[in-house]
C-alpha cells in the first residue's frame, strides 16, 4: 500500500467512517487511475440500503467539494456519481436532482497545478455531462432501464 493509502486507512479509523464509506473514499482517492468498476458496482449495490446510501452520499458530497489541489477527488466523485446514477438505487437519482447545483457549479471548476497544467478541464467536462443528464430525467430513466 502506498504511503497515502496508509494515511487514508489511518484517517478512516480515526474519523469513524463506516465500511462502505471507506470503499467510497478508496474509489475517489487522490491516486491516478480511474475507480475500479468492481468497487463502483459494490457501492452501487450498497445504495439500495437506506443507511449505506446516506453514508455513500456524504462522502461523495465531501469529495465533490474538495479543494482545487485535490481535483482528483472531485473528478472521481463525479465519475462514481455518474455510475451510481445508472446502476445505483433511485434514491441516488432523486438526491442528485435535488442537489443539482453542486454539480452545476462545478462546470467552471479551475485548477492549474504547479507545473502550469490545467487540471480543471476534466472536472468541467464531467460536470457538464452530468448536469445535462440530471436536467433530463426522462433520458436518465431511459439509460437506467437500458442498463438492466
Amino acid at each position, binding site marked *: 500500500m502506498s504511503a497515502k493509502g496508509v494515511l487514508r486507512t489511518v484517517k478512516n479509523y480515526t474519523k469513524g467512517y463506516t465500511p462502505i464509506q471507506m470503499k467510497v473514499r478508496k474509489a475517489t482517492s487522490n491516486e491516478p487511475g480511474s475507480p475500479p468498476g468492481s468497487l463502483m458496482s459494490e457501492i452501487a449495490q450498497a445504495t439500495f440500503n437506506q443507511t449505506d446510501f446516506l453514508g455513500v452520499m456524504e462522502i461523495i458530497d465531501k469529495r465533490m467539494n474538495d479543494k482545487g489541489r485535490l481535483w482528483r477527488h472531485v473528478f472521481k466523485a463525479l465519475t462514481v456519481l455518474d455510475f451510481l446514477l445508472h446502476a445505483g438505487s433511485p434514491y441516488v437519482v*432523486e438526491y442528485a436532482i435535488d442537489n443539482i447545483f453542486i454539480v452545476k*457549479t462545478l462546470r467552471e471548476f*479551475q485548477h492549474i497545478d504547479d507545473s502550469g497544467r490545467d487540471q480543471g478541464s476534466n472536472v468541467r467536462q464531467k460536470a457538464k455531462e452530468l448536469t445535462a443528464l440530471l436536467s433530463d430525467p426522462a433520458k436518465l430513466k431511459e439509460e437506467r432501464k437500458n442498463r438492466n
Partner: protein
Amino acid sequence: MSQYQFSLRLGDRVKAEQELMTSVRKATNPDETAPKRKHVRNMIVFTWDYKTSMPVWDSMKSQPLKANEVQCYKAIISLHKVIREGHHVAIQEALTQTKFLEDLAHGLGGGAYSGWRNYSVLIRAYVNFLLAKLEYHRLHPEFNGMFDYKEYVSLRGTNDPNEGYETIADLMSLQDRLDEFQKLVFRNFQPASNNECRIASLVPLVEESYGIYKFATHMLIAMHQRVDGAEEALEPLRKRYNSQHYALRKFYYECSNLRYLTSLINVPR
C-alpha cells in the same frame, strides 16, 4: 426526499457562515486577478443550502470595497454570479440591496475611485448593468437568474402573446445594455496587463447574453406560431433580433481570442 438534503448538507450554520465569510474575503482580495471560482462557488452553494443570500451581502459589506477599485470590481463580478447561479431568492434579496450597489458605483466619499488602474468607469457601468438586470427581474418575476426558457414556461402558465411582446422587447433592451457594457470592458483593456480581472467579468456576460439570446429565439418562434398576422406584427422585434444576433457574433468572436476565457467556458459561435 428533501429530508436527505437536510440531513447531509445542512450541518452547522454558524460554521457555514464563517466559511462563507472567508470565501467572500478571498474572492474580493486586492490581487488583480479573477475572483477564484472556488470562493464564488461557495457563495452560490450557500444560497442553495440555506435558501438565502443575505449573509453574502453582509460579508460583502464588511470588506473595504470602496477603498480599493480592484476589490470592488471583484465583488461586483462575484455578486453577478451569485444572482445568476444562486437560489431564486437571491434575486428577490438583491432587489433590496440596490442602494448598496449604487454606493459602490460612487466609490469612496462619493468621488471616483482613486486607483491608477482605471476601474472606476467599469465599476459604474457594471453596477448600472446589474441594476438594469435586477429591474428586469422585478418586472418579470417569472424568470430565473439565467433566463432559462424551460423554467419560464413552467413558471408562467399563461401564454398571452401580448404579454410576450413586452417581455421580449424589455429583454432585448437589457441585451443592448449588456452589449454596451461588454464593449466598454474591451476598450478598457490595459496594454501592460494580462487583464485577467477584466476578462473575468466577461465570463458571466457571455453566459448572460447567450441565455438572453436563446430565450429570445424560443420566444419569437413560439409567438410566430401563436399570433395571427405574426409576420407583420412581429417585424420590429425580428429586426432587432437580427441586429443583436450580429452584435453577439462579434462579441463572441472577440472573446474567442482570450485564452483565459476560452479555457474556462465554451464561447458560443
